[in-house]
């Protein structure tokens, strides 16, 4: 069984002066079908503007994020802040996680906060663990009618897996330390 994803709506945003580039948020409804999963490219200037690993993140199918508003294509948005979060601890009894937040826009100091696990997409729940990285994007959208709407999203970074080459490099460097520090 696979998933077929249809992009229901896309929105283009203008961006604030502090973040260059144009980015899209794809909003889609997954349908369970017998067809093979259809991957789609997610272009996101938020991710592209941030430090990334050499390997591209895996492309994944995502359910509609909770509380993301349906957007009109002509909406103009401003990203107020992007925070890179790192999970410090998780409490499944209280359904919260403690996170260290690093603002990415402007010279703003780090913060800490508790986040309700309900804000995490169902498909990202398996990523919740100490050390996991996520991004919170805080945006405002001015709709065609002139209304201002909030658009806040929490998205876990589905990291690439360690490659064989990376592991070999790690082992080789560790070996060089070991030999250097344990030589007579």
């Amino acid at each position, binding site marked *: 069984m696979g998933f077929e994803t249809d992009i229901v709506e896309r929105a283009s945003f203008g961006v604030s002066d502090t973040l260059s580039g144009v980015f899209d948020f794809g909003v889609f409804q997954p349908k369970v079908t017998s067809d093979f999963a259809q991957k789609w490219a997610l272009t996101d200037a938020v991710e592209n503007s941030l*430090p*990334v*690993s*050499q390997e591209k993140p895996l492309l994944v199918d995502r359910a509609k994020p909770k509380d993301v508003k349906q957007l009109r294509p002509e909406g103009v948005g401003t990203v*107020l*802040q992007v925070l*890179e979060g*790192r999970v*410090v*601890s998780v409490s499944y009894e209280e359904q*919260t996680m*403690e*996170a*260290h*937040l*690093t*603002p990415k826009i402007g010279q*703003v*100091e*780090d*913060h*800490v*906060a*508790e*986040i*309700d696990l309900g*804000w995490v997409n169902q498909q990202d729940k398996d*990523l919740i*663990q*100490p*050390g*996991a*990285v996520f991004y*919170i994007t*805080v945006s*405002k959208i001015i709709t065609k009618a002139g209304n201002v709407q*909030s658009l*806040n999203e*929490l998205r876990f970074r*589905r*990291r*690439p*897996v*360690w*490659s*064989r080459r*990376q*592991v070999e*490099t*790690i*082992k080789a*460097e*560790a*070996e*060089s*330390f*070991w030999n*250097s*520090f*344990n030589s007579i």
Partner: protein
Amino acid sequence: MIDYGTAPAVNEVEVCIFGPGYGEAIAVHLGNRRWLLVDSCMDPYSREPAAWTYLNSLGLADSEVLAIIASHWHDDHVRGISLISEKFPKADFFLPSVFNNKEALEFLCAYNGKTAPGQGLGAQQLHDVLVRLRDSKRKPHFTTQRTSVIDDTSAGYRVAAWALSPTPGACEKALAHLASYVPVPNGVMPINHAPELSPNYEAIALHVNVGGEIILLGADLEEHPEIGWSAITADEWCLSRGKSAVYKVAHHGSETACIPDIWKQLLADSPISCLTPFNKGRKKLPAQSDINRIYSYTSRAYISSNKSKSPALGREVVKELNGICRNISRANSGFGAIRLRKTIGTDQEWRVELFGHANTL
């Protein structure tokens, strides 16, 4: 920038504890412009390591640093330590002996920040120090209980610093933890930040004796009946080092790092107790119960900075984030330093000075 006044006299011992709310660094003056540096955090004003900024501001940038100690690898204790090591290249570098194992070295190499920037900041700092040492054909000192960090009598009085921890058992336990995060190419393990593993049994607690003036630096060592603080208070060798009149309280004052025997066996009556807060994590440290407990043992306690401060993200962003987050606060609650000075070998009391946001506990 903080005005730290004047440098210590050559016959003065000094302990200066820096803390920005998330982070800790200690500079110990051993007399005669010689220093011991333990851990590192960043001075938010200079944006450089706090100990470096301190020595520089006192005109002591060319001082002799005998040893730099990374008590453990958590990033709140080693931020900027690679730069400190670069500034004082002749200093011996000490780190817990758990890192004298291939798996632990692989851990540092994996989370060295190169695979994804910002990953494993603490591991990255230690990794960078090891690279420099390896490339300059020097060796770090892998430290365990009873390791001699300094033993010097050249100034006419003995200067000695001994590691009271970690025990071999603590290193084994820490190694197992670290090894579980060493990557394997199984196509499943994602590249993530290295989590800060707790409880902390592998930290280096240090006993420092400067001409009879004794200081206990508790690092983040926590209690465990066999490999934590009890392993120190039950060890005759550790007890024979002498009781300390100054105590850098372990693990930000938390109850997990406090047993009565620390205060009874290792410390003099009512020692001057200093600590840094920890404003990250579910439980901010020290809690009120921790403060009450510390005051049950001493009447003189100081903290390097305040509790968490209100967020500094802008009103609009905070308003939006309040829908997602609770208890948003700054990781750093204001930088401060506690400085203690005493003339070596006299009956004078220690003089306490508070800088920046430092305050009575």
